[in-house]
């Protein structure tokens, strides 16, 4: 049964990709909004969509501006309107076993339709806006939506110091939930709540809608002038914890700070600290009594030829006991820690393969909690670009369930097939 569903999934992906290749316009180099505005190809800013390379990280922090442009108002005609649509079709197969109900399920769905807009406004580029409207599983939701005032300090167009307000991804500049090439979520994201958007409802294996906190952030970058120099990126912010259930959210703001450096053209390291404030006695990520819980992490990335390797360690402290100060066994008193490693293989030039653009990757993600059986996820993926902004992707996910709070206790195998097209 499993094999037949997998076979059907693969067959469907191939048929769909063939259809898209037949129907798509022959020249699709500049489809998405930023590419249309800047005249640059997708690969100028993305290692592999949606993961940003250094140029892309600079461009984003800089309010979607290249400093050389000097003037940024460039909406000359309909072709340059800063609007994109992304459609994602997904085939799922999941088999669970172990404690709880074992079983398998499969489905094919239009996972998400997203409307994205982003641009610097006005010739001076002092203000930039970005927003995502998402249609998924019958619901309409607002994804990231923020405005940024650029260049509070320093030369125009360099983004030395900016202020950002709205809903956005709180994470490291090079490692975040919105930059996942492997679509499987990070434990650091959905279980620790430290690396970007949290899952909103659904099971741990589903592709549920993600939610973003609303916050105010001061950010900036000091970009190396020489190729082998050091680029610094920094951000500090306050946010409104979304899981607070009894009002006065702004009375208990969360706090975070991130810092990263990129050096010798191939190494990046970064650290993130987050003081989370939420309230539930049942989940270690939702502490009761509106008290803060410290979360932090460090991560590094290295680019070696066609390989991009990323590793990270993330931790969430447990809450202090509410009684006489002794550590209790309650779930929310116990700390969580997470290790992850990911490798992407992005070849530049492969003989005998049409279009010559594909990505292979793997990730190992492991989470521990004091007094609990650990849990891990291993994911392998392959992506083939039919066009620069249209690709098919397959993922094989193995989840070893444990008893860590907030993760699935059951072992599972899952196959995912995606067709993603951006216009």
């Amino acid at each position, binding site marked *: 049964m499993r094999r037949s569903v997998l076979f059907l999934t693969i067959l469907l992906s191939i048929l769909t990709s063939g259809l898209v290749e037949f129907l798509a316009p022959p020249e699709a*180099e500049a489809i998405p909004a930023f590419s249309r505005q*800047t*005249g*640059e*190809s997708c*690969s*100028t800013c993305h*290692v592999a969509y949606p993961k940003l*390379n*250094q*140029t892309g990280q*600079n461009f984003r922090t800089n309010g979607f501006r*290249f*400093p*050389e*442009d*000097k003037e940024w108002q460039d909406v000359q005609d309909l072709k340059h309107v800063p609007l994109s649509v992304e459609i994602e079709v997904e085939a799922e197969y999941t088999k669970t076993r172990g404690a709880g109900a074992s079983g398998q399920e499969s489905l094919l769905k239009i996972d998400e339709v997203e409307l994205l807009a982003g641009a610097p406004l006005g010739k001076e580029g002092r203000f930039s806006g970005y927003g995502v409207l998402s249609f998924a599983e019958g619901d309409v939701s607002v994804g990231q939506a923020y405005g940024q005032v650029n260049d509070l300090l320093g030369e125009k167009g360099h983004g030395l110091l900016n202020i950002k307000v709205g809903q956005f991804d709180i994470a490291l500049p090079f490692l975040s939930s919105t930059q996942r090439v492997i679509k499987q979520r990070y434990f650091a994201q959905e279980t620790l709540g430290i690396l970007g958007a949290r899952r909103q409802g659904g099971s741990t294996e589903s592709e549920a809608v993600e939610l973003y906190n609303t916050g105010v952030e001061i950010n900036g970058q000091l*970009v190396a*002038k*020489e*190729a082998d120099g050091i*680029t610094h990126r920094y951000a500090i912010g306050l946010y409104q914890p979304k899981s607070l259930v009894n009002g006065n959210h702004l009375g208990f703001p969360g706090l975070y700070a991130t810092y990263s450096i990129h050096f010798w*053209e191939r190494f990046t390291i970064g650290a993130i600290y987050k003081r989370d404030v939420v309230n539930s006695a049942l989940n270690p990520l939702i502490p009761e009594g509106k008290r803060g819980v410290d979360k932090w992490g460090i991560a590094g990335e290295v*680019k070696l*030829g*066609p*390989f991009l390797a990323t590793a990270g360690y993330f931790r969430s402290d447990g809450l202090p006991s509410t009684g006489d100060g002794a550590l209790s066994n309650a779930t929310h008193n116990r700390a969580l820690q997470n290790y992850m490693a990911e*490798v992407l*293989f992005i*070849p*530049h*030039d*492969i*003989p005998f393969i049409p279009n*010559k653009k594909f990505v*292979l990757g*793997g990730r*190992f993600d492991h989470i521990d909690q004091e007094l609990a059986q650990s849990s891990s996820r*291993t994911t*392998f993926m392959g992506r083939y670009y039919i066009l620069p902004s249209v690709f098919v992707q397959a993922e*094989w996910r*193995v989840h*070893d369930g444990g008893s860590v709070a907030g993760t699935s206790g059951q072992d599972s195998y899952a196959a995912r097939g995606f067709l993603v097209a951006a216009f």
Partner: protein
Amino acid sequence: MNTIHAGIAMLFTLLVLWPLTGSATDRKTPSAPEEFLKMTNPVPLTSGTLNEAGSIYEKQCSKCHGDNGAGNGSATKDLDVKPRNYTDKALMEKIPDGQLFWIICYGSDPDTTEMKGYKKKLSQEQMWSLVHYIRSFAR
């Protein structure tokens, strides 16, 4: 256990694939056809030509080639093969006008560079003017 086997298989596959991939650090600029290499710039070099070309350069080229033509624009941070340094006089003397024009027109190696062709965006006269402007960096 299956996970470990799959991991080993994937690593092995990647190691096998790596040598098959071209080195991204090799400059593989295609050479223009002979008839282009023999061409001389038909657009006269005047201050007006340079002004017009300078404006096109600022809008279309400076993100990668840099404001001063040194090939260090902000969009080159992740390129293994950086754009040519137009301020290098010795290098620029070796490159014929026709080669510069042909690359502007049709683009360079798509696997290792982001240099695309501007045939549909710029007129022949504008591209020849750019050749003058590019050469002005090394003067």
